[in-house]
């Protein structure tokens, strides 16, 4: 080992390494913070994952609920007292109950209800009537909420009142 001027020679690398340490410390802090935040968010997402799973399954089932609704509303009037048809109508009620038990609620989109784009999706607008308020003229497809969140907006025709 040679003993040369230690001060001058070591000064440069020392500064460099100091700077490197500062940089790396900053990087480490940021990565740690990132990780902490990510972990917290993942925890939150985990708890909502069940909910999302529920919703995803519900979305797949909705077209079937739609069809049953349609089938019932299209039942010919002369058959409405038929026992078999009554049975099918009972089935629809059963389905409604089952949906409620998994927190799947129908959005109110009956005629006259005030139009609200948070939960209603307007696909048709009847602008003949006069008035300041926009209300639902006709429900075209039932919408659903799951624990207060829109799973599918109700599809409606809107008019003025």
């Amino acid at each position, binding site marked *: 080992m040679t003993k040369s001027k230690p001060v001058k020679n070591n000064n440069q690398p020392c500064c460099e390494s100091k700077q490197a340490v500062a940089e*790396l410390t900053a*990087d480490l802090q*940021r*990565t740690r913070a*990132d*990780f902490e*935040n*990510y972990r*917290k*968010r993942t925890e939150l997402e985990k708890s909502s994952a069940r909910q*999302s799973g529920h919703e995803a399954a519900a979305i797949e089932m909705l*077209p079937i609920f*739609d*069809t049953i609704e*349609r*089938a019932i509303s*299209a039942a*010919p009037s002369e058959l409405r007292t038929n026992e078999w048809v009554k049975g099918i109508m009972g089935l629809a009620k059963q389905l409604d109950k089952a949906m409620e038990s998994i927190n799947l609620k129908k959005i109110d989109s009956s005629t006259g209800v005030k*139009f609200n*784009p*948070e939960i*209603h*999706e*307007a*696909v*048709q*607008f009847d602008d003949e009537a006069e008035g*300041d308020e*926009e209300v639902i003229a006709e429900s*075209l*497809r039932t919408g659903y909420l799951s624990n207060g*969140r*829109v799973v599918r*907006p109700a*599809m409606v*025709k*809107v008019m003025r009142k």
Partner: protein
Amino acid sequence: MGKIIGIDLGTTNSAFAYMVAGKPEVIANAEGNRTTPSVVAINKSGDRLVGQVAQRQRVTNAKNTIYGVKRLIGRKFSDKEVQKDLDIMPYEIVKKGTGVAVKLGDKEYTPEEVSAMILSKIKADAEAYLGEKVTEAVITVPAYFDDSQRQATKDAGKIAGLEVRRIINEPTAAALAYGLENKKEEKIAVFDLGGGTFDVSILELGDGVFEVRSTNGDTHLGGEDFDNRIVNHFLEVFKKENGIDLKGDNAAMQRLKDEAEKAKKELSSTNEYEVNLPFLTADADGPKHFEYKLTRAKLEELVKDLIDRLADPVNKALKDADLKAGDIDEVILVGGMTRMPSVVEKVKSIFGKDPLKGVNPDEVVAVGAAIQGGVLQGDVKDVLLLDVTPLSLGIETMGGVTTKLIERNTTIPTSKSETFSTAADNQPQVEIHVLQGEREMSADNKSLGRFILDGIAPAPRGIPQIEVTFNLDANGILNVTAKDKGTGKEQSITIQNSGNLSKEDIEKAQKEAEAHAEEDKKKREAVEARNTLENAIYQAEKMPEEFKDKISDDDKKVITDAVEEAKKHKDASDKDELEAAAKSLNDAIMPIGAKLYQQEAETAKEAGDDQSADGPVEGEVVDDDASKKK
């Protein structure tokens, strides 16, 4: 310093992403969706609506709902595109200076201000998601945007309270998302088929800088055209069958659109899609259903001319860049429509190579923008690129099986501890055999080293606690420590080159593991079954001695006979035989064990004491730890 978010500010939809620990992640908006409609509206009460909500009320408020504002930003009123939009757009476009403004309610807003409303929602949603203030962003624009359009986009950011650190080209962002900036010199084609427009860009990469060589496209060709073809086909078929035109029936049209969307997706992987829409509509004769089989061939026929229209802009772009299709090194797909197999086929036939895959084409631009943000922020640095361990690391345990401590693809540095025990009574030492590889049996994996931890105090099997710790540092140096928790004695080994494997070696190891997976699993199951059997024999053999006063001589004989019988099967290699032997041994002993507990419970009851709760623990140990014993 807060996060720099990357924003893909689109004509119809926008998306945004950020970097977390060096990796891009797309942010969901307040409604939980990964894309946000680029729509702004003001309703009667003067409330400003942005995104999905604005979209849903569009038909009721067409004059005050602004969409496609990206077509107007940074343009002069006299521009041809603006003049064309004057007729098409249901909202009012007015002249402001030499530029344009749109009317929302009774006020005029510049396109920058409208874009700023979209950016404000993105900013707020990102802040809610990240739980911190967001003040900086990278925003993408089409490659053909001129200085004025870029400046206007930057201004929009400023109005929304975002410092726009950089405006980058959409195709460049897509290339960044695929990590192409690390390549040396490449020619890249970016093929972007969105909802309503088609853009193709030719990029040239040199020294980590992307240069746009040419762009071309078709402003009126996109996913909507494809969907419309399918829906129109459904309408025709239905009309032919039932004589009813469904065009005016919004509910039915929506169901047909949803079905067209599903059919398009499904026909990517199957050859036939069955449309089944009961009670689609009704007339005087009663309800009408729609049942129809759409084949992939028919779908391709329906959209053939649209597909063919993709070639021309590509050829023009290549010609402008003075290149031939064969000169292109990489092809990147952007936009949801590029998922359709016939689109991919077309791309392949034009360029003669497979496009890059892996990043969601709806999100690839936002992801690239986030990566650019990360670079600006200093998140993406060579020194901090994290590596993963290419193969699993573990130790050999009873019966010659490998127990993995660190699974392959774990990001390093990392460490992991697990507690093991002895396999025999009074075992004085354990051997720690460190292994690398994916196979179940130790003999099939690579031995990295071994050492012995001795001086374990005499104890029955399963009692000593040997803690084994694997510590893998960022350079792939592995340190393995074994510590006897009872005596505090420890031993360790350092393995220098655990990560030093060629790509071929890693692939070979993985392939072998896959090829032998079934056979290895059988071997491992047999070992586990044998361990269980040996444990059962061990426990049973102890019984007559341990409870000599409480077990009758007849029962003692039953136990010895059952143990003798079980021992005959100890060396079998068939899992079922081993399991059956363990079962019959347990069946023979169980009634005797039950009797013992009953006696104990009665004694306890007499003594008014409740000690029997400790009883079953011993039995539990047998199964759980069998495979982990050293």
